[in-house]
């Protein structure tokens, strides 16, 4: 059992005033087989009304409306997570099939298919082992480079450049697994240190989801706090919203995760 303290801070700055701002936030880790979450603070500003729900992947969401005119929007979440590396993240069998199929962001094109053909997994490998093997090969082929891809970059686009960030690693990894119809899902979460959110993946191994981190080429340990999962990054969008006005907007995100001793 490991105890981690986490804080998530987001601030949206709008160049021009915004009104009738409808938002849906997905930045709240929830308790499952592997982690137990307790919250100390959840603050959203400004807000006219807000309410909670779980989406169809079981992710916690808070949605609502900020009617009054504002030029910035902030979200602050703090709490602790107790994680258990040995616990199995049980899968509901009827909810795994969905994760075998492409989405727009994870669809393999020429370059991913070609790479996939060049791979040579051992035929004794289980699906999970094949996935880990593909993760190793991807890690050799791809270079972590911030700033060349964006949130809407597809797996295929990123892979053909051979450069990208954690979201791209995860998407390409998912694309490879889905070429083999191995159920796998995208995970948004936090890891120790100070910075942005992180992204990794979960692969179905028998009756459990096993988290792996393609960016670091490793199996996830007890320092990973999961926020949400879905078919791809879009399902895990931290902030969805519509509003009037705004002009250019900039987003600041600060995530801090520390081991509690």
């Amino acid at each position, binding site marked *: 059992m490991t105890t981690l303290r986490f804080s998530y801070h987001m601030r949206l700055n709008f160049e021009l005033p915004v009104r009738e701002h*409808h*938002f*849906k936030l997905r930045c709240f880790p929830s308790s499952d087989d592997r982690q137990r979450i307790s919250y100390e603070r959840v603050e959203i500003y400004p807000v006219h*009304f807000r*309410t909670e*729900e779980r*989406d*169809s*992947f079981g992710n916690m969401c808070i*949605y609502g*409306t900020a009617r009054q005119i504002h030029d910035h929007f902030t979200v602050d979440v703090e709490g602790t997570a107790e994680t258990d590396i040995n616990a199995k993240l049980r899968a509901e*069998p*009827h*909810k795994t*099939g*969905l994760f*075998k*199929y*492409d989405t727009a962001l994870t669809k393999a094109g020429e370059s991913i298919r070609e790479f996939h053909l060049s791979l040579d997994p051992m035929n004794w490998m289980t699906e999970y082992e094949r996935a880990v093997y593909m993760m190793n090969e991807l890690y050799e082929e791809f270079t972590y480079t911030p700033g060349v891809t964006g949130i809407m970059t597809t797996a295929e686009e990123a892979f053909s450049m051979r450069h990208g960030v954690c979201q791209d690693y995860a998407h390409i990894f998912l694309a490879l697994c889905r070429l083999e119809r191995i159920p796998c899902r995208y995970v948004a979460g936090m890891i120790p240190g100070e910075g942005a959110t992180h992204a990794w993946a979960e692969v179905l191994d028998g009756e459990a989801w096993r988290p792996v981190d393609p960016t670091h080429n490793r199996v996830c340990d007890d320092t990973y706090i999961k926020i949400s999962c*879905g*078919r791809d990054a879009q*399902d895990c969008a931290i902030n*969805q*919203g*519509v509003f009037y006005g705004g002009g250019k907007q900039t987003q600041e995100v600060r995530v801090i995760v520390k081991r509690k001793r």
Partner: protein
Amino acid sequence: MALTAEELCSYSDNVNEQLARYGVKFGIYKNGEFHEQLFPFDVIPRVISHDEFAYLERGLKQRVSALNEFLRDIYSRRRIIADGVVAEEFVYSGSGYLVPCDGVSPPGGIYSHISGIDLVQGRDGSWYVLEDNLRIPSGASYPLIARELCRRTIPDAFTGRALEDNSNYAELLRRTMDHVNTGGHPVILTPGRFNAAYFEHSYLAEQTGARLVTCDDLVVENDRLYFTDYSGRKEQVGAVYRRISDEYLDPVNFCSESLIGVPHIFDIYRKGNVAIINAPGNGAADDKGIYYFVPKMIRYYLHEEPILHNAPTYLPYYEQDMSYVLANFDRLVLKDVAEAGGYGVVFGSKLSHEQKEEFIRMMKAEPRRFIAQEVIDFQDIDIYEDGVRVPRKADLRAFVLMSDEAAVWKCGLTRFSRNPDSFIVNSSQGGGFKDTWVMSE
């Protein structure tokens, strides 16, 4: 004394004049410009005998019940996939499958409140289902108002005929809305005047007494949906018969680039605080690929043999079907599952050698994208054109409305192709419509 068909035809202009008077139109975009067009009406009705319709009625209720079960299943337990009856790929990679609907149980357990099932009658008299429309099937308003105007224009045509009254459509629709209403007003949500079916939206609102609203009139607050009236008062809305498609329903949850839609309406729908008619995500069941599986669904969920037949259909996705399609390419009709409205339909026999090669290459690359069907030899129906009666292809859209029980409207939209060589009856491609007379004895 009932009129002969010839006598009836002589009133054609008078009836169309009446339809024009009431603005019975549909909208169409040509070169990016919006036009309103009259929907050409042919006075010769399609007549369906009492017994024949009773048969259709049983078959339609059965089919819609199975489709409703299917929707409930694929958004919850997914037994039909686990049991290998429907290939999961057809469910999950269809564009109509909406993941956010997973785990939602709509009010009353009803997904397809208003279903429009397209049928054709073969030359041998047997009926075939061509398509299930479970999203926003339109068209009921046209025979509804046409009947009324025909009765006014040609009362003699109805004298002495034992004909089912069709004027109860609004009542059926209102009952369907009220049955699932979670508390509050019923409304009809239209994208606005520049929608193809705007006449229908406004006419059905008038006839049902439900308020016609656009997205701007609705607002979500504290997990409830409200309509704001002109004095600023908020009235709760409990049932939304929406005539806008899923992707434009809620910009926060679906298409965030658009400002169309009602922010958060989907969130409160998930919580059971408003009924959306028809349910979001229904596209998963009326996909052209899923069509193939409907008879299997009927056996699986209802343990009954299908009463209505599908047109014989092949899925190139299955190897066996692919070989059949390749061997019989020239006599099949091929359809792209992603297209609608009569687009993406190709007759094998009409392709040149190169086009055929190209098509087969595409089909082999993406077998999931296509279905192939035997060409049904439609029974032609006479229409009156330039003073003479001529035979044309026609289909029938039957409407099934679900409230505490399924009800088939004893009428339907008969659409015909005005082009003698065409099988495509869609109004967007120049077709016209007829009334459908269901005999009561």
